[in-house]
């Protein structure tokens, strides 16, 4: 077994290769770029108009000030972009691979199968959402000003990474289910419609929905909690909790993936 540092480097090499391939592929279809640009602008415009409408009637939403919700919209768009860039297309490809049996080719490759299926396909133009989200976060931080210290920024990045890990593990677990239930593409649609609820701080929702958004479809940790960390409203225990939960999700999804893989029989079998 190779040492962890080398394995990590190899993982990033594979991801990079996948992105380059995806980019080359996407450059053939340049109209898609314009379409994605239109789509991202519409999403951003809708979110901003919604915020403007809400804050024309109040100056805070359950304690959240306008600039803080601006940061929340930025994180929402950033995370949606990251998920749409690599995770979701790869998971769709995985489900298709299980159904058609083309997963055979992936499994015979001399690298970790989970890693390979996780970076299998890249939808490059979604990078626009990532950039728009990042820009919005920076803009909001500039407006919030000195309340965002280095500690807040650091824990923001940490919690955001933890949140991404949680969402990735969640989607991998959903996709792994396709080893048993073959027709399952629709299950990703559930995730997409639940994700929409993450546009607003989860704290405003009734308790049952809050629990669902935290543990059943874990978008809370990817969107609300990082922004809380950014503006210094997250207790240290919350930071530790997010990191612990991310580790637990990663390990559990890994175990489940390996368990599921044993049920895979290939196309012709």
């Amino acid at each position, binding site marked *: 077994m190779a040492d962890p540092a080398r394995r990590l480097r190899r993982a990033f090499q594979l991801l990079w290769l996948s992105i380059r391939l995806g980019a080359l592929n996407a450059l053939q279809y340049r109209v898609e770029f314009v379409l994605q640009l239109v789509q991202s602008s519409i999403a951003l415009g809708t979110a901003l108009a919604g915020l403007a409408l809400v804050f024309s009637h109040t100056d*805070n939403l359950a304690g959240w000030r306008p600039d803080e919700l601006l940061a929340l919209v930025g994180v929402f768009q950033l995370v949606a972009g990251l998920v749409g860039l690599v995770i979701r297309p790869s998971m769709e490809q995985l489900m298709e691979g299980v159904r058609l049996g083309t997963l055979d080719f992936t499994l015979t490759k001399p690298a970790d199968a989970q890693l390979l299926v996780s970076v299998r396909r890249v939808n490059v133009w979604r990078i626009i959402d990532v950039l728009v989200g990042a820009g919005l976060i920076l803009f909001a931080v500039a407006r919030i000003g000195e309340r965002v210290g280095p500690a807040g920024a650091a824990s923001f990045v940490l919690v955001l990474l933890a949140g991404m890990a949680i969402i990735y593990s969640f989607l991998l677990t959903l996709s792994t289910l396709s080893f048993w239930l073959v027709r399952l593409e629709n299950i990703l649609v559930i995730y997409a419609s639940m994700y929409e609820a993450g546009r607003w701080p989860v704290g405003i929702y009734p308790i049952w929905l809050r629990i669902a958004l935290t543990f059943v479809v874990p978008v809370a940790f990817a969107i609300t909690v990082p922004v809380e960390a950014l503006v210094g409203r997250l207790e240290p225990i919350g930071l530790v909790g997010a990191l612990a939960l991310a580790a637990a999700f990663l390990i559990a999804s890994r175990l489940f993936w390996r368990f599921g893989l044993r049920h895979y029989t290939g196309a012709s079998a």
Partner: protein
Amino acid sequence: MFASRALVGIYRAKFRNEIAVQFAYRWALGIWLIGLVLEPLVYLVVWTTVARSQGGAVAGFTASEFAAYFTVLMVVNQLTFTWHFFEFEWRVRNGFFSPLLLRPVHPVHNDLAENLTFKLLTFTVVLPVAALLLLTFDAQLAPAPWQIAAFLVALVLAMVLRFVFEWTLALAAFWVTRVNAINETYFVVLLFLSGQVAPLALLPPVVRGVAEILPFRWMISFPVETLLGRVPGEAILRGYAIQLAWIVAAIVVLRVAWRVGVRRYSAVGA
């Protein structure tokens, strides 16, 4: 023109067919339901939170009235929505329009029958969900009998208007091969100007003035507000007139666009 007896037969066959299809995809129905409930629920929670922070009411809406508004909105949205403009691009691009054109009836009947069956089926699920929402959020909804009658008329007109309007919009696929951007823009405009994000009373006056003229409000929020007793008598009659005017306008455009569009259509692979 086709005899109406034959048309009834076609609709009945289509009903049976469509019910079988929907029962085969029960899962998809459940997933669709989550989306249908979640969106109004999110805005309901947002506006309830705002109302509480403003001492109980925003623009004349209390938390209980928001609950009634968004629940009725969900039901009206379910009864009026159409999805055919999503299918059109695929139909035109892949040549699936050809078999529809070969049939001796206008393709609009195919979609209308499909639409009505789907709504009839899903309504049986949506109604209990709506009752549950009304109870959970302590909604204030006590319409008088005449308001229910006025609501039903507005609802039927809204269903007709939205179907004809969106079917006309779908015809854009004859001219543009990627209609996705058009559809998404339409969705956002509909979201704000039909009262789905917030009751129109909460929008800035200028936007509200525009919304009163455009057709979107008359597809969704008008019936909702009628049931909630927020539209005075004569305004209801004026609303019906505007709905009818938009229906006539949309049908005229539909007929012209259809005649010109079908001539442009050349099936892929033909």
